[in-house]
């Protein structure tokens, strides 16, 4: 009994370790990319319905508000068990725009008025400015759907890569 459980634990442990190594061996992108971050629960729970939004794209207060209202999340129920919710919230806060040490996050933090707590990246003044060349009807194309679908145009969005050279707007 004991041995079986130990073997199981070792097996699971090594799967976890491999996941970490793979994530870490990924080379850091150019300076404009947001820093590589990883948390297994976040990656699993926050990517099933949409792009895995990098924590450096919103300030701490936004993530805290999003994470405390997951059961009514943009009209859907994204509720989590309390342990997962706490772990993901802490991860998001620690890497949020006002805590991350990179130029992009610093700009996002500065350009978001202190008295506002945006729940959408796509409604921050920073986002609107960066996308002022995208026409309204483009957002509505079937392969895009809404500004929240970053991955439709930024292939590397899940990894925080928004480099201009790799932007491709689907027809």
């Amino acid at each position, binding site marked *: 009994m004991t041995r079986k459980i130990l073997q*199981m*634990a070792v097996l*699971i442990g090594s799967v*976890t370790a491999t996941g970490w190594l793979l994530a870490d061996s990924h080379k850091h992108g150019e300076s404009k990319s947001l820093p590589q971050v990883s948390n*297994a*629960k976040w990656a699993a729970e926050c990517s099933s319905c*949409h792009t895995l939004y990098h924590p450096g794209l919103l300030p701490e207060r936004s993530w805290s508000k999003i994470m405390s209202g997951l059961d009514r999340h943009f009209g859907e*129920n994204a509720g989590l068990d309390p*342990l997962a919710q706490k772990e993901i919230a802490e991860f998001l806060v620690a890497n949020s725009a006002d805590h991350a040490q990179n130029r992009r996050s610093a700009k996002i933090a500065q350009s978001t008025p202190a008295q506002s707590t945006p729940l959408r990246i796509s409604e921050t003044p920073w986002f609107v400015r960066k996308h002022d060349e995208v026409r309204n009807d483009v957002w509505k194309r079937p392969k895009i759907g809404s500004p929240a679908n970053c991955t439709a145009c930024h292939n590397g969005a899940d990894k925080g890569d928004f480099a201009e050279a790799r932007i491709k707007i689907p027809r």
Partner: protein
Amino acid sequence: MNKMTTSSLALLLALAGTNAIAAAPVDVLKDYAATARKENPAFKEFSAQRGEALYQAERTHSKGAKVSCAACHTDNPKNAGQTRAHKQIEPMAPSANPQRLTDAAKIEKWFSRNCQDVLERACSAQEKGDFIAYLLSIK
């Protein structure tokens, strides 16, 4: 149980959250069958036909929108569907997507979200088993 076993069990439990231990869909069905019998003594067995009806049925949500399981998962469980946020959902039928229905906690999480989302109530154990029986019947 000795100390070693207890601590490795604790480790296992801690890790279970990140790396779910694969379970076969039949194991999940056994659990749902046991609960279904408790919920309804007349329960006999799961039915793929009832499961299909649940999968395809469209109803009007109290907020006015037409909703169904098929709306996100498409009317054919072998096809990829799409979330409301426009992300692709891999096919639901294990014959088309072997990753499906292998993690009991994940299955429960999505039943509780999606039944609420579509039916505005929880699904019964029988409905869950019927739904899975339907997915498994697709070759």
